[in-house]
């Protein structure tokens, strides 16, 4: 796809995103029914769920993209895959940051604690740390080719680790000692009230567009930077 078509696609996506977000905001705050005033949901506060969960899902999707891109880089050794891996990781970290911020905002009024060591939130924290570690690895390797190689390996390791992390934390949380220390942790949201489904799906769709849009933009930024590197290399020689 050439430059012009890319610009058009970006514009279309951007427009869709704008519309999608407005719709999502409407659905989340006005369109969806008010949750009951139970100890777990506290009425309007529950609406944060519409941003908390899709962020988590999109974060995981971003990390999956990073995994595939890392694998492809090791196979093809084409810098574009490395740029994609980096973009996906950054966007994933962003989404998980949203998860980790909205979690406590929800938790504080409901359970009077900023942090609950619930399996989901704890796993989100560890995944966030894992991909921050990915960024750290990239930050400390100066040679671009080695950086791509080494971070691809780490990206693969991190993604294979994720399900094991999730499983281990969930299992540890069943330990009765855990329950005593963190009573609020066991109260995760169960099924979703069917009336809330349209709002949830709208937000999910909007966040999906956000994911694609952000990864694309970051990807093009990174490939442009790599191109600059190549040009600087040429000018270095002519002096």
């Amino acid at each position: 796809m050439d430059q012009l078509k890319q610009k058009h696609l970006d514009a279309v996506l951007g427009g869709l995103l704008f519309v999608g977000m407005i719709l999502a905001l409407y659905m989340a705050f006005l369109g969806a029914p008010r949750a009951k005033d139970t100890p777990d949901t506290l009425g309007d506060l529950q609406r944060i769920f519409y941003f908390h969960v899709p962020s988590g899902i999109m974060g995981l999707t971003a990390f999956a993209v990073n995994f595939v891109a890392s694998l492809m880089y090791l196979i093809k050794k084409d810098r574009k895959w490395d740029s994609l891996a980096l973009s996906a990781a950054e966007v994933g970290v962003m989404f998980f940051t949203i998860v980790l911020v909205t979690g406590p905002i929800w938790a504080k009024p409901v359970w009077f604690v900023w942090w609950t060591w619930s399996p989901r939130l704890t796993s989100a924290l560890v995944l966030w740390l894992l991909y921050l570690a990915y960024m750290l690895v990239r930050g400390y390797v100066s040679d671009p080719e080695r950086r791509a190689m080494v971070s691809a390996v780490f990206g693969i390791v991190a993604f294979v680790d994720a399900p094991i992390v999730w499983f281990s934390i969930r299992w540890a949380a069943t330990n009765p000692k855990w329950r005593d220390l963190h009573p609020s942790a066991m109260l995760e949201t169960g099924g979703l009230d069917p009336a809330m489904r349209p709002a949830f799906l709208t937000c999910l769709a909007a966040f999906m567009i956000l994911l694609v849009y952000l990864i694309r933009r970051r990807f093009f930024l990174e490939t442009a930077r790599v191109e600059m590197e190549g040009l600087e290399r040429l000018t270095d020689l002519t002096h």
Partner: protein
Amino acid sequence: MPGLIEVNGLAKYFGRLSALRDLRITVPQGQFIALFGRNGAGKTTFLRILAGLSRPSAGIVKIHSSEPGSQRARRVIGYLSHNSALYLDLTALENLRFYARLLDLSFGNSALEERIARVGLAGRAREPVRNYSRGMQQRLAIARAFLHDPSLLLMDEPFTGLDQEGTEFLKGYLNEARTQGKTCLMAIHDPVIGYALADRLVVIEKGVVALDLARQSISLDEFQGRYRTLTEER
């Protein structure tokens, strides 16, 4: 007949920095090349790529029609850099025994001691390498690097830091290797030694081969003159 080493369009970047730009060279079996160039001209990078320690950014490199770094290439290559790759806390014998084991060489102690004697270190085989002088370490490094009798010797400034005795020893060793028909690429600073040992003189400058002459076609003085001109222009 294809050369032992075939290099075409070799480039190596480190981000903005180009270490090698467009290197082309063909090396037939049995040739002895002295590689010259300023510091940072790309000699070390080139040797490392041939050894398979570094991946090319672009271009084609073939050793015996294999990729450098492949097991097939590693089997025929002996690489010697100015770091000895010796474990200082082990004895000479232990160092060689370790490598013999990895190289699948069924060398008993006596065979290993013979190798150690061959590089002039007999009687000091059971001392920790930490106690060796630089010249002695370099000699043991030679024994280590060439333990498997490779046919292609890649050496990065092997004479640097050697004393008179060590230099004479290495010259003799390389001349013997030459009569055995081994191929050799040696990066070197001293044009006198390089000229004396080599069949072919190659100068790398700005990431490409700038000069490539048979030793017989030029006198030492002429060569030094041309080298100076090449590396002085800015």
